[in-house]
């Protein structure tokens, strides 16, 4: 709170100082630039952090859903950060998370299981895994070409970054992304386990 008051007190004398100067053309442009800067930068940063984020999907780990042709054409998606503010996701959602192996990289995968689910893994050290509390299990659609929970295990929900809601580029692939689980990749039914 001290910092807020500090910034607020610095901002108003600065703008009034600029207004009190003789309004030559140069000073007027400087005043407009500085006041615009103080408005645009915090608003943009807040929108990107809290509401929506635009990202380019690279790699082949989500083929054929993203980047079906591969090569130079990458899809650009809109990530909804407001819907994950309470860490609520559904099975089948495509989400972006901060990579547990590299905190400066974000990866985009599909949610297969939530906490408490039993998952049959593909290439993980245990064949069956119960997803612990506060974690979820993510997989790329292109098995074998994907760095996902099958390599590093269940991921903590605190790493959740955003939920992919729309593909916005290229225009031929404009669509809303709906949650859907791939066939045979859902959590195991506990009745099936006991039977």
């Amino acid at each position: 709170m001290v910092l807020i008051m500090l910034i607020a007190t610095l901002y108003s004398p600065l703008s009034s100082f600029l207004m009190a100067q003789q309004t030559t053309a140069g000073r007027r442009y400087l005043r407009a630039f500085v006041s615009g800067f103080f408005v645009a930068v915090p608003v943009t940063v807040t929108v990107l952090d809290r509401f929506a984020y635009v990202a380019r999907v690279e790699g082949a780990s989500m083929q054929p859903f993203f980047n079906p042709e591969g090569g130079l054409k990458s899809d650009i998606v809109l990530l909804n950060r407001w819907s994950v503010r309470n860490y609520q996701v559904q099975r089948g959602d495509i989400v972006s998370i901060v990579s547990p192996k590299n905190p400066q990289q974000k990866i985009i995968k599909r949610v297969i299981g939530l906490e408490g689910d039993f998952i049959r893994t593909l290439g993980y050290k245990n064949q069956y895994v119960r997803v612990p509390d506060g974690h979820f299990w993510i997989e790329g659609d292109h098995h074998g070409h994907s760095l996902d929970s099958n390599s590093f295990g269940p991921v903590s929900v605190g790493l959740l970054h955003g939920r992919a809601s729309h593909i916005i580029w290229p225009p031929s692939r404009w669509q809303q992304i709906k949650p859907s689980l791939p066939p045979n990749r859902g959590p195991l039914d506990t009745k099936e386990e006991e039977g």
Partner: protein
Amino acid sequence: MFRRVLGKTLGFVGYTIQYGCIAHCAFEYIGEFVVCSGPSMEPTIINHDVVFSERMSRHLCKIQKGDIVIAKSPYDPNMNICKRVIGLEGDKVCTSSPSDLFKTHTYVPKGHVWLEGDNLRNSTDSRSYGPIPYALIRGRVCLKVTKYIDIYNIKKTANVSFCNIRKLVMIRSHVYGF
């Protein structure tokens, strides 16, 4: 008249949005005050202490061994934990308690950190849930707000003491012998 009221309301809303965004940027990129609860960091931070955690080192990846950090709990993302960084990625950390006969060690995996509370006997930390990903760290604790009661005037005053939390690492390693 109606247009004037509308204009003033829009101006007010605009200022609120602008200051709200500045506040968000300050809390997210500069620092925030946190109230700590629990005995796991005694005697460095006791129950109900107010500390200031700065965010810049986390965004610039400058968290070092010995820093006290605030992180999201790996089992519940809405809860925060306050612990000390004992090992960064690639470090060898001791996982057995001091009373064990045989000492076991593990290596901290890439992109993770090993956290332990200062009050080893009363702390759930990486010794129970393993190393946590670096991205769960929210900020580094750098200042502690200390309160003292002035006996003569019977009023509480707060002063910020620049207690060098890093110095306590040396005391701790001397006590525990590693």
